[in-house]
């Protein structure tokens, strides 16, 4: 949560990376050392794409644009902070309703729900593309965390499970690639408007 409150895009990206890496650590704790291609793919997704790749790609764009250091992800006011803390409390209460037994599954649901709702809070309060990307990627990471604790319809070492996992990983990879493309081309993070050029014919 802390990186959301600090008005710096570098810390926001560090927070995103931390979220991905912590999710990878939880996956490792839950499933043990990876023995199947599917388990390796999960770790590849969580560590290399969500933990390292996505933050690094976005960092590269903002660094090249020489974006100002300050960037609010959550508006710096008492209402937003109260809402953010309230979301965390509500998430833990909510997980008690859904998963009555105490323990890791309950905590996992609570943390994933909090991450999801905080992502929505960011999306609801921000209009610049970089902050929206942070919100959307936090939601994506929370979904990955939520998936970890869920039941599977195929054994993790089956070919079907591997291809389903591969499909999801490719979707995340393409999404991150597109986010980088938009961040480089949309006005917002560097504060400079893009000059419109003459509109030509369209298909």
């Amino acid at each position, binding site marked *: 949560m802390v990186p959301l409150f600090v008005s710096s895009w570098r810390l926001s990206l560090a927070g995103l990376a931390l979220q991905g890496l912590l999710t990878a650590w939880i996956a490792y704790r839950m499933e043990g050392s990876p023995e199947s291609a599917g388990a390796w793919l999960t770790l590849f997704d969580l560590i290399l794409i969500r933990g390292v790749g996505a933050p690094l790609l976005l960092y590269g764009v903002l660094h090249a644009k020489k974006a100002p250091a300050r960037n609010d992800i959550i508006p710096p006011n008492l209402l937003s902070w109260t809402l953010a803390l309230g979301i965390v409390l509500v998430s833990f209460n909510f997980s008690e309703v859904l998963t009555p037994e105490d323990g890791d599954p309950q905590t996992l649901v609570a943390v994933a729900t909090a991450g999801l709702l905080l992502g929505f809070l960011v999306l609801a309060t921000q209009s610049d593309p970089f902050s929206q990307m942070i919100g*959307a990627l936090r939601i994506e990471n929370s979904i990955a965390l939520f998936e970890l604790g869920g*039941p599977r319809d195929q054994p993790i070492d089956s070919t079907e499970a591997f291809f389903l996992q591969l499909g*999801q990983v490719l*979707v995340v990879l393409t999404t991150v690639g597109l986010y980088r493309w*938009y961040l480089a081309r*949309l*006005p917002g993070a560097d504060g400079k408007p893009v000059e*419109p050029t003459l509109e030509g014919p*369209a*298909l």
Partner: protein
Amino acid sequence: MTKTPQIMVIASLLTTLLGVLEILAPSGGVYLGGYVRLDATSRLFALVVNPIFLGISFYIWNRITTTPVLAEGMRRFGWFALIFLGAANVVLVANHLLVLWIALEVTTLAAAPLIVRAGVPASRQASWRYLLFSSVGLGLVLVGFQCLSRSLSADGHPASYFVDQLPELVREPANAWRKLGLALVLLGIGTKLGLAPMYSWLPEAYDEAPPAVTALLAAVQFNCALVVLFRVVQIYRPGNTALVGGVLLAMGTISMVVSTVSIIATRNMKRLIAYASINHAGVIAIGLGVGKAASFGLLLYVISNAFIKAILFLTAGNIKAHYKTKDTRKISGLVRDLPYSGVFLMVGTFALLGFPPFGSFVGELLILSALISSGQMLVFAAFCVLITMTFVATGRTIFPMIWGEPKEKHDWPRQTFWPSSPKIFFLVALIALGIYLPPVVSDLIHEVATSLEGR
């Protein structure tokens, strides 16, 4: 000269032929380890989505021929369009909820770059909003599917995402996971369909995208998202009628309210059709929410609308290309200036407003009658008022464009038949739907309508 449009035509011709051949396959047959299933829903929508893609490909081919400057970047466009077409067909035939989700995501990721027009920053902004809303909406759908899977475990069943197996496993009364999952899935797919509350991406994306891409989004991708919604309703409605019906009725009615207000306010031709699309999505949600007798009408409405939107968006693109404006107040005398476009806009608007003999008329009538028979009098009253307001507002804006006195004298070359042939094909299909349904199509619609009741 680029060969991309020809490749798109050939590819969509092949998928159209496959769609026709699917009718010969046994109903409900599963293939590829159970991941592919050809049921009535997939066969019906394959017959809608692929011919529309084929028509749009012909339109693009003609645009490239008449405006060679558009050939630049066509190779990239073609690749994304073909990925979009492939993924759209996977959505139709997938028998596994996660495969459905991945394929719908792929259509989104392929469509986002297509919205961007070179040198138009507003189109990049619109494309970003489209991608953002779609990512979040589909994220909600994925969480919803996970919750539905957890609901099976909570009831002591093995987890399953197979569409044909799930109806047997969800017969118990809904637990908290299932209620949460259904609400999230409906909200998420509602976002893809442009339903309230997360609809604001739609007018912007439809307005800024090139007309051919807008037609793809409105007539092809919309129906793919609808197929996902149909799958969920087919599986989960029987045990959760109140929840599914309630959420869909609420989203549908609110969408109709916001779109009607926007239709009254806008003077932008493409935005007006975009808001009408939100209005239609609202009607469809209401029809799906009320179920029962509305299902047949709903399907007629859905299929008619696919052709209406393809005609209207392609025509709007042609009008803008000539008048260089989307402001409805600056366009007048279309039937004289651009006779084909004038006729398409006129007939498309009549169909849009639900005039007879179009399928949209029969569809709306059946939905209204089902609202009365199910005792939803409040929704019925709101529906009637909103449809009337939409009717007046759309007519007030569009009809002067068609029949008004031309404001300037134009020396445009006379419109010929060949460039308009895709729209003529859509128009013939639209009129045929209202007048005569071939028994094969009618049987398919009946079968899908029955399946929407979970039978």
